[in-house]
């Protein structure tokens, strides 16, 4: 593994911030080494400065993409934390379905849900499974489920919907595994009926949200923790703009919006918290 030199930390951290919005302070330098060493080695770079120079001069942006993939990928599970999914099933979805059904006279009620940092798709597929189980006649509604992530690789993997048994065993009950996945050797693939309910695309949360429209429910969990306070403020301000006035926001269970956004109020439901717009 290539060691990062003290004088390399600042410029490399700045570069990673520019391409991904992820802010690595000097006590997270191990992340450079564990996540970027193999890319550097693969490209024949002896140091992080060399990798930095090479990535900046790469017109195809392939190296940049690889670095974003490596630095942004975090562990994610099906039904990670039961709380938010119980919340979705017992509170948020029923309320949104009622509210949208009351408004949509004659038309199919349209409900838009966004997984803002969808990684390899587990969160959005978990949401789709809950909807499938909660709503007996799906054709009476128009559900739009969108997952976005900064990593091309994560988006591609999410779209493909194939997971290895370690990724899947933790969190997903066996009954649901067998109902919604098809075994493929050491892997499990999401069934088409669930796959067809979702869409994934690339989005950097630091850039403007163009063409996304307004969502009824937004999940933005465990991603803002990698941003600076200033960027977190900007992010949740944009999220407030993207959320319907009576919509719901769910953040990570150890995250807080105190001092981050004055536009949301927290509400408690059982063991979870969700946010409404003020």
């Amino acid at each position: 593994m290539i060691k990062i030199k003290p004088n390399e930390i600042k410029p490399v951290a700045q570069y990673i911030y520019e391409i991904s919005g992820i802010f690595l302070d000097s006590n997270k330098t191990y992340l450079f080494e564990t996540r970027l060493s193999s890319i550097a080695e693969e490209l024949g770079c002896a140091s992080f400065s060399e990798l930095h120079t090479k990535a900046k001069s790469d017109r195809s942006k392939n190296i940049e993409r690889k670095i974003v993939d490596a630095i942004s990928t975090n562990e994610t599970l099906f039904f990670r934390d039961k709380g938010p999914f119980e919340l979705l099933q017992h509170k948020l979805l029923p309320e949104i379905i009622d509210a949208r059904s009351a408004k949509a006279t004659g038309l199919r009620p349209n409900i838009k849900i966004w997984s803002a940092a969808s990684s390899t798709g587990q969160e959005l597929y978990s949401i789709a499974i809950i909807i499938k189980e909660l709503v007996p006649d799906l054709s009476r509604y128009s559900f739009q489920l969108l997952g976005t992530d900064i990593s091309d690789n994560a988006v591609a993997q999410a779209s493909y919907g194939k997971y290895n048994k370690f990724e899947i065993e933790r969190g997903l009950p066996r009954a649901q595994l067998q109902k919604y996945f098809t075994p493929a050797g050491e892997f499990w693939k999401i069934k088409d009926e669930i796959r067809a309910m979702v869409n994934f695309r690339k989005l950097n949360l630091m850039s403007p949200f163009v063409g996304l429209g307004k969502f009824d429910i937004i999940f933005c969990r465990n991603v803002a923790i990698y941003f600076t306070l200033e960027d977190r403020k900007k992010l949740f301000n944009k999220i407030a703009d993207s959320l319907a006035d009576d919509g719901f926001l769910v953040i990570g269970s150890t995250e807080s919006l105190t001092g981050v956004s004055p536009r949301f109020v927290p509400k408690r439901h059982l063991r979870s918290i969700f946010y409404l717009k003020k």
Partner: protein
Amino acid sequence: MNSLTILVVDDDPVIRRLLEQRLKKAHYSVDVAEDGYKAEKLLQQKHFDIVLTDLMMPGGIGGIEVLEIAKEIDQNIEVVLITAHSSVDSAVEAMKKGAVDYLEKPINFDELFLRLEKIINIKSLMRNARDIHEAMDATENAASETIQNLEIMAAKLQQRLDMVENELRDEAVDAESRIARALDILAGL
């Protein structure tokens, strides 16, 4: 000392006996079954870490079926198939169905023990990962409870402060009454 439990399934009594002896000598805890039916029964009765099964066995339950039964009972059971050179293709098929490894006959015991040690290492890594995950979940749960309580409390305080501000700005009321009302709101905290 090996605490792992191994089930040996083979219809050939010589191989069965040989495997049993060698594995016991290496301090594994070993049970044997002479066919798939017996294996199924044993798998239902007690826990095994590893199943070492012949691929081709007479009767309705062959190695592949033993593999499927074991995985159905417990996904964490690792199955190693023993196969004749001519049926390597079926062994590869079995690996696609979740077998961890296969060995060709005649059994090379050095190779067998090497493979077993590898499985033990992987299992212990997985156990470590599971322990770490559990510890992480416990920490995360405790942290989230604290953070959520603080979040709700901060929101309540903010709401009170907004009320106090409104009262103090209310020009329809004289200064003294405004202060009195603001104090009432603060006293209600």
